[in-house]
Each structure stands twice: as structure tokens, then as C-alpha cells.
């Protein structure tokens, strides 16, 4: 059976096999590299695959094991890393022309941690340029498709990482989440993704989009695998002043706890924000599953999160406009030929894509003298109120439940001409970033009615995955993961059967008929 293939297995299972000496790290890495060769032309998840380094790394892990040494928590497991996280000696493009040839001279703290735990970094994944987007269509360097339906987006901005895990190209991946960029693509591709509490995971080496919102997070097939990555990358980093130094528990061990007796709140505002009927139905079934697990569910209200998206689209661009100033052509990255400094700046920075330029302009505007108070300062105040809403809710509830996204994966090109409809894809995920809270997206089922786009008629024959979002108290990833794990156990048989079928079909499907835009190497957003 196809489930027997190494690439179709979860990280925790692979780890057991390797520890038992039944397979080698080299075999594992080879299996995933083969799978990448097989499906990458259809999925397009990677910007770079480090085949030779990956295999060399795997051999080293095997030698360690043979000599009786412990190769680390993730010894021999392949990991894909979003291309806005620095890996020394490897290009770090951020999906942008500006950094298309920039080779990072240092490892991000999370990458150091992965290496220290024996993980094998086998590729850098595609993303919306500088993590700005919800479909990965804003990448200037490649098009990534949703493995469930190649006509659809994988979500974003960590679309490459999510698609790679869903397609079985890699068991584990890192993404970054500024407004939902881990959770939303996880939901769109039927896998699990966590945005940790702000400060739980070091940001050192993550190319900043919006510093007060960015957080690196893991993506994997299930909660247990997410915990494996969390155990490796969490903790204080003296290089990141916003990282937190409270002790980190073992997340893997926390999974044995029961979800029984947990109090869960369902914010009623979350079901009014353009949530599709299919998603709503799926979410309601998920609530029933939770109740069956002994979770007490009650409706609640977070009145201020109605303003979360507006608030986010002031704060995030403001910080981005400043963070992206360094891409000026002076020291690294792309430099346009020009006569004189001013012209060099202008010509160089024209190479940002339209969405990035839009946000730089927006951010520059809201920080300008005379507008600062009305926009940035007011948004900062709203943010405080949103935090307060959550704080109040968490006095009563252990977790909050909502759908991760209002709809399932939309069609490629469907929203590229309408930024506001694109922004709506993050409406349910943005509040956790504003409040700095841990939030998990876990697969909860499939939408019964396909949310067809303009030409969609549901003839893909495959239902699209829906994600359940579980939000927790600051630094209480344990409860979030524990509830997520208990829930996932209940739905796993159905979800994983679909996943296995999709993966199997993906290997067979010919791209030509399935992907109408196969001939276009780039997302349509880029054509402007």
C-alpha cells in the first residue's frame, strides 16, 4: 500500500523506524528527494532543493547512529524551510527579485537548533514576496499549487512549506506567521500548523516583515509532528530581544494529557466574517467532536476583533515599510544601474512586486507626520483593546475555537486583482498575531460543497480541506496542542484516508489537464 512508502509516513513514525535501525536517514532522505522529483513539477513548492547537502547530512547522521551516538531529537528527518529564514551558504530570496541571488552568510537561530537536533534541511520553500500575501501568488520566483486541486492556491504566505508537507515532499516544514501565514496554508492544504506565542521561538534570522507580529511556526501532517519541531526550536535566544526566557515544556510529552474538562469559547464574531456555508458546517461538526471528547463549549464574544483586520493592515505595513528600507541596492541584493544615488534607490526598489510596494506605501503613509496619530497610534490602541478582549476571554476559557479561514482554498488568480478579498482570507487568523497568542490550525474535515470560483463547478471530484483554529493563552501551547491532538485523533482516520488518496493521485495525475495555468511560470499577480 502507498502508506507503506517512506515519503507517505509521518515524522514520528520515521523517527521510530530510524531509531530501531530499520531504515537509515539516507534511505529516508532519498525517498523524499525522489518524491520531490516526482511531484514538484506539479506542485512547485520549492525554490531550492539541497539534494547533495541533504544526502551528505543524512550519511553523517547514519554514521553517528552506527557509532552509538545520539543524533538529536530530529536525527535524520528532512525539513523544508521557508525562504525567508536564513540558512548559511544558501540563497534566501524571500520570494523576491530583490534577493533572488542573495546567499545568507549565517544560520537563523531556528536553523541552528534544527541542525543541532540532527534535522536535515533539504529545501527552501516558495512564499509570497516578503511574506506578504495569502496565496503564494505574490512570489516573484515561482508558482505553487495546492496539491488537493492544482487549479487552486495553497494559501500563503508559507504556501510552499504547506504544499510540500501536504504533497508528501517533506514530513516537516517551517513557515512564518505574521497574520496567519502558517495556519491559513495549513488549513488550505489539510495539514497542521502552529503559530507559537510571540517570543516563544527566536526570530533571529527570519527576514522581518512586521517585527511585532512575525513568529516562526512548524507545519506537519499532524499535531505530534508539530510538537517534534516545537521541541527543537522553542526557547529563549539572546540574539532576539523579544524572545521570552521562561522555561519551555516538552510539547511531545504534553500530548498524553486528556482534553476532557477543558473549557472552550466560540467567539460569535468569528462566524459572521464571511464564513462560507461549507466551512461553517464543517466547524459545527468539529464542535460536536470536541464535545464528545469532554470539552465544554460555550459561545462568547470578542467585540474588538471586528477591527482586527483594519488594525493589522495599519500596523503590519507600518513596520514593513521600515523593515524593507534596507533593500536599497547599496550593500547586497539587487542593484539597478543608475546615475547617482537617488536614481539608484528608485530603480532598485521598483523591483519589489506590486503587493510589497502597496504595503510600503501604505506603511509610509500611516507613519507620516500628521497621520501617525490618526492611523498608527490609533491602531496600536485598538491592538491593546483586542489583547484585552482575549485576556478577558481567557479568564473564563482555556481555549478559543473558530474556523481557521472563512473559505477553503480559492482558485489561482481568483483574488489577485482584488487585494481586499485577498486580505479577507486572514480575517480569522490575524487576531492571534495582534494579541501575540499561540494558535493552531488542525484539519477538521472537508467542505461538502466546493466553494467554486468563477469557473468552478466542483468537477475536480475532490473535496477541499477545512481547518479548525485553536487559540490559547500566552505561552500555553501545551493546552492548545493537547486539545488539537485529542481532536485530531478523532478525525484522523477520515482525514488521513483522504490525504493518502490525494497523495497517491498526485503522483499519477498528469499536470496538463489539471492545471490550466501550467504554461505560466509565474503567478498572475506578477503580470501587472
Amino acid at each position: 500500500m502507498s502508506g507503506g512508502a517512506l515519503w507517505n509516513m509521518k515524522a514520528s513514525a520515521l523517527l521510530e523506524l530510524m531509531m530501531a535501525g530499520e531504515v537509515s536517514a539516507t534511505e529516508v532522505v532519498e525517498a523524499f528527494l525522489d518524491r520531490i522529483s516526482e511531484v514538484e513539477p506539479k506542485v512547485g513548492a520549492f525554490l531550492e532543493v539541497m539534494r547533495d547537502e541533504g544526502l551528505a547530512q543524512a550519511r553523517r547522521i547514519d554514521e553517528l547512529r552506527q557509532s552509538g551516538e545520539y543524533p538529536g531529537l530530529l536525527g535524520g528527518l528532512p525539513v523544508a524551510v521557508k525562504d525567508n529564514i536564513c540558512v548559511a551558504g544558501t540563497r534566501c530570496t524571500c520570494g523576491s527579485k530583490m534577493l533572488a541571488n542573495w546567499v545568507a552568510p549565517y544560520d537563523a537561530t531556528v536553523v541552528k537548533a534544527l541542525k543541532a537536533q540532527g534535522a536535515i534541511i533539504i529545501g527552501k520553500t516558495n512564499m509570497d514576496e516578503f511574506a506578504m500575501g495569502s496565496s503564494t501568488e505574490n512570489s516573484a520566483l515561482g508558482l505553487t499549487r495546492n496539491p488537493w486541486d492544482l487549479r487552486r492556491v495553497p494559501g500563503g504566505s508559507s504556501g510552499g512549506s504547506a504544499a510540500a508537507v501536504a504533497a508528501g515532499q517533506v514530513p516537516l516544514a517551517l513557515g512564518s506567521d505574521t497574520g496567519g501565514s502558517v495556519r491559513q496554508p495549513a488549513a488550505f492544504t489539510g495539514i497542521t500548523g502552529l503559530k507559537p506565542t510571540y517570543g516563544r521561538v527566536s526570530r533571529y534570522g527570519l527576514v522581518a516583515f512586521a517585527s511585532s507580529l512575525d513568529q516562526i511556526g512548524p507545519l506537519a501532517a499532524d499535531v505530534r509532528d508539530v510538537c517534534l519541531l516545537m521541541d527543537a526550536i522553542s526557547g529563549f535566544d539572546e540574539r532576539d530581544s523579544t524572545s521570552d526566557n521562561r522555561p519551555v515544556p516538552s510539547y511531545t510529552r504534553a500530548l498524553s494529557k486528556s482534553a476532557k474538562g477543558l473549557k472552550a469559547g466560540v467567539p460569535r464574531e468569528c462566524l459572521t466574517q464571511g464564513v462560507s456555508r461549507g466551512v461553517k458546517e464543517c466547524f459545527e461538526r468539529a464542535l460536536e467532536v470536541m464535545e464528545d471528547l469532554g470539552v465544554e463549549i460555550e459561545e462568547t464574544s470578542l467585540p474588538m476583533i471586528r477591527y482586527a483586520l483594519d488594525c493589522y493592515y495599519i500596523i503590519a505595513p507600518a513596520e514593513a515599510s521600515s523593515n524593507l528600507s534596507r533593500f536599497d541596492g547599496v550593500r547586497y541584493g539587487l542593484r539597478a544601474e543608475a546615475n547617482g544615488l537617488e536614481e539608484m534607490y528608485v530603480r532598485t526598489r521598483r523591483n519589489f512586486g506590486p503587493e510589497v510596494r502597496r504595503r510600503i506605501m501604505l506603511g509610509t503613509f500611516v507613519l507620516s507626520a500628521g497621520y501617525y496619530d490618526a492611523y498608527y497610534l490609533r491602531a496600536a490602541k485598538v491592538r491593546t483593546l483586542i489583547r484585552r478582549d482575549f485576556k478577558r476571554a481567557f479568564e473564563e476559557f482555556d481555549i478559543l475555537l473558530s474556523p481557521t479561514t472563512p473559505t477553503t482554498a480559492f482558485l489561482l488568480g481568483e483574488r489577485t486583482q482584488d487585494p481586499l478579498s485577498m486580505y479577507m482570507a486572514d480575517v480569522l487568523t490575524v487576531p492571534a498575531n495582534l494579541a501575540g497568542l499561540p494558535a493552531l490550525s488542525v484539519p477538521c474535515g472537508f467542505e461538502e460543497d466546493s466553494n467554486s470560483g468563477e469557473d468552478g463547478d466542483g468537477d475536480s471530484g475532490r473535496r477541499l480541506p477545512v481547518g479548525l483554529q485553536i487559540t490559547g493563552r500566552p505561552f500555553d501551547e501545551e493546552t492548545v496542542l493537547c486539545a488539537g491532538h485529542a481532536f485530531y485523533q478523532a478525525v484522523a482516520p477520515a482525514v488521513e484516508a483522504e490525504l493518502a488518496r490525494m497523495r497517491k493521485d498526485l503522483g499519477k495525475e498528469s499536470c496538463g489537464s489539471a492545471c490550466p495555468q501550467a504554461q505560466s511560470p509565474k503567478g498572475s499577480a506578477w503580470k501587472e
Partner: protein
Amino acid sequence: MSAGAKSERVGLEGVRLVSEKEAAGGRLAREDLELVVGLEVHAELLTRSKMFCRCSTRFGDPPNTNVCPVCLGLPGALPVVNREAVRLAVIAALALNCRVNLRSRFARKNYFYPDLPKGYQISQYDEPLAVNGCVMIPGPPPKKIRIRRLHLEEDAGKSIHEGDDVTRAAYSLLDFNRCGAPLIEIVSEPDISSPEEARQYLEELRRILEFTGVSDVKMEEGSMRVDSNVSLRRLGQEQPGALVEVKNLNSFRAVVRALAYEKDRQSRILTAGGTVRRETRGWDESLEITVPLRLKETSEDYRYFPDPDLPPLILSEEWLESVKREMPPLPEEKKRYYVDVLGIPAYDASILTSSRKLSRFFDECVSRGADPKAISNWILSELLGYMNSRGLGPDAIPTSPEFLVKLIRLIDIGVISGRIAKDILVKMCETGRDPEEIVREEGLQQVTDRAFLEHVVDEVIAENLSAVEAIKKGRSKAMGFLVGQVMKKTGGKANPELVNIIIKSKLE
């Protein structure tokens, strides 16, 4: 309202000032105008590493050798505050009588320039480290100059333009060694009303910052930089006229000359019924004038906002107390000690406390048992005299306290004369050698051999009979002349007291 509109408003008030006067039928005279100056001083802190990374702050290393992802602004790099920089800035704030804020905050100042690698400078804006300080300047009359704020920030890199002219350079080179070095910016209130007061204020700031070990305040190495805001105000009025910012002030002398020039320039405009434009001007060292700097039409909007990479800087009461306890003495305190306890004249004490190095040198001499007054005299007249003639600053004292104390002891016990000692000091300074060694090797011991000296005195008397006559007539000046002749014949080595006694006995 935009910053541009704001500056326009201030400019218009400048116009109104003049026109009201004219409406009243009076003519504005130069004597009616008072100089109003506020100074912004940047001082580089004496830390080993930079403000937000671990790179060295050493001066003069090959370009771009003290750099890392953080100070080069590489993608993904993050700043971490240097504790020692905060400690030194707090010492400066306390020494300048500021109120230290237990909570302050770093903010980003956004602008594009090639030597600013992140496209923003991390500084402090609406929540500075310290506020409301003051410095006393000696005058006369003594005056209090208030300090509005003191904050921490990072330095930029250095642009080196081909041919030294930015407008015509074919290319520019960048050195980021200094980029990210810790700075404090000290902003005074506009309390300075003359170029001389500005000089005194800067001298006092420099003395305090150097003395407390906060900065080495060398303008020539760029570790102290000054910008000024200059305007004129009609005597008796509250509101000063349009503000002119003067940059490129690379020495105290440049500050004094530039302020004098601006006062003259602005009063000429105002007395002729014109208006002073609000603008930024640069001091041209060679022409000794200020010239308008070519700036953009619109005024710069730095879009300050709190740096999301750095949480607020929170200082605890206990930590602040511990810094206060371990505060190095201030120059004024040290000076009082020298005067009141050691009996040093006030003027001498103020020179000894003009620099930490000098004061430490003096302290060590005293702790080695030297007589404070004697050693102070030697330092002020001989040692500093030598150093001034060679252009040496107080951080390049060419001998050690140990040697200077030895030298004075050699005089005290009669081995050498004071005159010879002055020559020995020069040799000590030139070679760095031990005075005892110099005396021994060059045979500079005083001659106290009575028979030999009597012989020399006989010779001198025989050669200067007229002087002998003069002495016998009671003219004591001639006595000194004879002693001098003996010293001359002995190459200064004769013990002058003994020579005196012998001459007197011969003439009786």
C-alpha cells in the same frame, strides 16, 4: 499638520516679529537683539562593543573589519541592547543632573542614506533615557544651562567620496566599522546667549563626560560632534525668531566662529528689515562663513515609531542606585577636594581636573607620598609645559607618576638641583626613562665637594671684581649674579645653597 507646514508657521512668526516693530515706527537696532542658541551634542560612549551587537568599537582598524550581520543590517538580523552603553549613558545623565527615566524606549528614525544600512537609525524619540538636566558654566557671571534631554542611539557608518566632493565623486566607498557604535545625544535648552557661553558649555560637557569615563570626547576622531540651533530674539521678548540649524562644526573654535558669524548675519538681515529664513546651514571652515546646505525642498519626515525589535528599556530602582553608588567623582567634587583638603590653589585645581587622565596622574603621585603642592606645581608648569610644546593631550602623558615622584625626591634629598631636574624631566619625557637612571648614567649629581666649589668660587671672584665691589656696597642682586656664574661653570650641578655660603664667607 505636516512638519513642512509647521516650519512654515515658525517662519511666519519671524516675519511678524519684525513687522510689528516697524509698525510701531521703531527701527530694530543690533543692541536690541540677543543670540539664542541650543546645542545638540553627540558623544560616543567608551564601550568595548557596539550599541546593538558584539562588534568592537576600536578606532582606526582597516575598513569593514569590525562588522557583523547586525551592524551591517543584513536581512533577519536583530538588535540587542548593550548593557554597558546603558550604564555609561546613565552615568552621563546623573553627572549632568538629569532625571533618569526608569522606562524609556527605542524608536526608529527612518531615512535613506548609504551609510545607514537598515534604512533607519535606532534612536530614542518620545521616551528618552533622561530629561531635565543642567550644567553650570563659569561665566562671568556663572550661568545655568539647562539640558532638555539625553538619549541613546547608534552611529552611522562612514562614506568616503572619491575626490572628497560628494557632488562630483565618480564613486563612494563605505566603512561600517563605526556603524552601530553607541552614542548619547545631549540636547540643551536654548539658554546659550553668546559664542563664549557656547564654548564654556561645551568645555564643561567635555570635562564631565571625559572625567566620568563616559566618552573620550575627541572632536578630531569624531567621538564628539556638535550641531547648533541659532536664532535671534528681541530683548525682552519670549519668542525667538526663525531657527537656523548650523552643521559641520568640527571643533570648539568652529562653534564659536560659526555662532559669531550667524549672529552677525542674522542681525544684519533683521536690522535691514528683512527676515531670517528657517534653514539648515553648514560651516565652511576655510571661508569662515556659513552657507545654506543643499537640502530637499520638503523638510525631512523621519516617521519615528517605537522599534518593535526592542522592548521598552526598563531600569530598576536598585540598579539605578548601584550606578549612583559606584559613580566616579565629578570634576567639581574632585576640584573641591584638591582645594579644601590638599590645599591646591583653585586655579591649579581646575586645571588638574580638566581631564580624568591628568587628575588620576596627580592622584597617583599624591598616593605615592609626594607633597601635593610641589607635585601640582611640577605638573602644571613643567610637565604640561613640555606637553603643550609637543602638542600632547592629557591621554598621552609621556612619563609615569612613579618617575615624577622619584625626580622630586632627588631634589629633596639634594642629589640634583631644581634646575637640573627640569632638564632631566625633558629627558624623562623624551625617552620614558627612570630619572635615577638618567642622573646616574649622565653624572648629573649635584657637586657638594666643598674644596672643588671653593676653587670655582675663587675663579669667579677673580673674574668679576666689579660684582664683588657691588656686593660690598650692599647690592644683593650681584650676589645672584655670582652664584649664576658658578652654576654656569659647573654645568648647573653645583649645590646652590653651598655656593651661596662659600661666596659669603669669601667676601667677609
